[in-house]
C-alpha cells in the first residue's frame, strides 16, 4: 500500500516536471517560430540607418530600438532606487527589528506585496495630479515616475528575500564573528551578507524580471508608443512590454503582428541577459570573497 502511494507520488512529481518543462518549451517554440523570422535590422531600426539610430542622430519609425533602450534605462533606474532600499529594509527586519516594530513593518511589506500593479500605476498617476495642483505645476508623467512606481512594486521581493536569506543563517554561525570580537557592523558586512549572497541575488533577479515585464504601472505613468530614445528621466519614453501590447492590440497588418512577436522575443532575451548579468556579478563577488587576497 505504502509502496503504491510512493510510486504514485513519484509519477505525479515526474508528470509535474514534464508538464512544466513542456509548457516552457511550447511557449518558447511558439514565440521562436513566430518571432525569429522577423529578426533583422528593420525590426530594430525600421528604415533608419542603424548607426544614426543608435547614436540618436535620426529618429526611428516602426522599429523597437527606442523601446529596448527605454526598458533597459527603466529597469536600471528602478533597480538603482529599489535595491539599496530593499536590502537595507531586509537587513533591518532580520537583524535589528524586534517586537511590535517588526510585526508592523512586516505587515506593511506584505500589504505592499499585495498591491496589484495597476493600482501602483494609478498611485503614480494620482501623485502627478497632486503635484501639478500643489508643488510643481509643470510635473508630468515621465521615466522617473515610472521608475519610482516600479521600484515600489518590486521592493517587497527584495525585502523578503534579503530577510529570509539572513534569517536562514544557522545560529552558531551568526555568533562566530561576534565571538571573535567583530562589532555588529563588521559581522554583518564580512560574515552575514556574504553568506546570504545567493538568496539576496534571487530577490534581485525576481525584482529585475518583474520590473522589466510590467506594463500596467508604466501605462499610467509615462510610457508612450512613439517617443524615440528617452531624452532624459523627466521625459516620456518607449518600453518593450508596452510596445508588445500596442503592436498586438493595434496591428494593422500581418507584418506588424509579426513585429510584436519579435519584440516579445527580444524582451525575453533582454530579461535573460539581465539575469545572467546579475548572476555573473554575484559569482564574481563571491569568488573575490572566496579568494580574498587583499589582506595577505
Amino acid at each position, binding site marked *: 500500500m505504502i509502496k503504491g502511494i510512493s510510486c504514485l507520488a513519484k509519477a505525479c512529481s515526474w508528470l509535474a516536471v514534464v508538464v512544466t518543462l513542456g509548457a516552457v518549451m511550447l511557449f518558447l517554440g511558439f514565440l521562436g517560430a513566430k518571432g525569429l523570422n522577423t529578426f533583422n535590422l528593420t525590426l530594430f531600426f525600421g528604415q533608419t540607418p542603424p548607426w544614426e539610430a543608435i547614436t540618436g542622430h535620426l529618429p526611428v519609425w516602426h522599429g523597437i530600438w527606442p523601446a529596448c533602450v527605454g526598458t533597459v534605462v527603466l529597469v536600471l533606474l528602478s533597480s538603482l532606487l529599489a535595491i539599496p532600499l530593499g536590502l537595507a529594509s531586509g537587513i533591518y527586519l532580520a537583524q535589528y527589528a*524586534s517586537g511590535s516594530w517588526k510585526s508592523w513593518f512586516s505587515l506593511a511589506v506584505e500589504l505592499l506585496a499585495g498591491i496589484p500593479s495597476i493600482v501602483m500605476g494609478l498611485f503614480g498617476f494620482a501623485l502627478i495630479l497632486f503635484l501639478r495642483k500643489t508643488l510643481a505645476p509643470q510635473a508630468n508623467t515621465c521615466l522617473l515616475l515610472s521608475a519610482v512606481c516600479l521600484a515600489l512594486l518590486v521592493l517587497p521581493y527584495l525585502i523578503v528575500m534579503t530577510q529570509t536569506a539572513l534569517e536562514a543563517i544557522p545560529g*552558531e*554561525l*551568526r*555568533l*562566530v564573528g*561576534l*565571538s*571573535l*570580537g*567583530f*562589532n555588529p557592523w*563588521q559581522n554583518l558586512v*564580512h*560574515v552575514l551578507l*556574504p*553568506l546570504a549572497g545567493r538568496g539576496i541575488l534571487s530577490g534581485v533577479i525576481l525584482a529585475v524580471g518583474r520590473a522589466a515585464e510590467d506594463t500596467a504601472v508604466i501605462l499610467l505613468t509615462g510610457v508612450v508608443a512613439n517617443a524615440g530614445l528617452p531624452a532624459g528621466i523627466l521625459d516620456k519614453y518607449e518600453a518593450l512590454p508596452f510596445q508588445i501590447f500596442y503592436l498586438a492590440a493595434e496591428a494593422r497588418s500581418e507584418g506588424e503582428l509579426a513585429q510584436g512577436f519579435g519584440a516579445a522575443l527580444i524582451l525575453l532575451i533582454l530579461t535573460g541577459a539581465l539575469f545572467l548579468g546579475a548572476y555573473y556579478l554575484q559569482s564574481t563577488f563571491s569568488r573575490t*570573497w*572566496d*579568494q*580574498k*587576497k587583499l*589582506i*595577505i
Partner: protein
Amino acid sequence: MGPKETDNLEPTARVAGLYVGFAGRGVLHDLTAEFYRGRLAVILGRSGSGKTTFLRALNRLNECFPGSETRGLINLKLQGEWRDIYGDIVPLTELRRRVGMVFQTPHLLPISIASNLALPVKLVLGLPRGEIPSRVEWALKEAHLWEEVQDRLDAPAHTLSGGQQQRLCLARLLALEPEILLLDEPTASLDFRSSLKVEELLLSLKDRYTIIAVSHSLSQARRLADEALILRDGSIVQRLSREDLQAPDTLQTLLDEIF
C-alpha cells in the same frame, strides 16, 4: 603529572553567585568557580545542564539572545588586571577577543585558509598589512597546523578535514592574542584520531592560556582535565581533581550519578 598545585597558583577567572536566565527561566543558579592558567578545567554534565550557557556567560555571548538576564560576579584577569566583565566598562569587542571561543562544529568562513585568520586579525586588531602574514604563520604553528597547510594557504578552508578545521578555528583565536580559551565540546564532531590531535594541542597550550572546556565525554575529561566540574541543573554539584578522575571507583560513581 605533578602534585596538586592549586595552593601556589593564583586564579585568572573568578565566578561568584552567577545566575543566567532566558525569558525568566533560570539556566544557571548561584554558580561559583575559579579557574587557573596552567590548570585545564573540564566541565561535565548532561545536555541541558547549562554547560554552553556558562561558557557564553564568560564572553557575554548570551546577550546575543533575546530575553537573556545575567546576575552575579565574573572577574577575569586580563592583561594583568582584574576586570569585572559585567560591571566595568570593558568594550565587548575587546573582551571577546581576549576570551576566545571554539564552537562544537568548526565554523569557518567560506574563504581561504589564510584569510580565515587574516580577516579577524585585520578587523579586530587592525594590524598593518605587512605584519599579517607573519601573524598568520605564527598562529598556524601555535595550533600545530602549519606543516599541514603551508603549501595551500590560498585553498578554501572547507577543503580541510574536520580535525584540521577545528584546529584552524583555534588558530584563528590564537592569532588574536587571547588569554582565556572557551571550548564548547570542541571534539564533538570529530573522529577519535582527530580528537586526540586536538586534545594534544590543548595540553600543549594549557600553560600559557586559561582553558575552560566543556565535554560530554568522561574519558576525554580523564585524558585532559586537571580539574573537572560537574554541572547539574545549572549548578556545580561536584569538583574532581585529576587524581579523583583517575580512580576507578570515581568513574563508576560518576557514570551512575551524572550520566
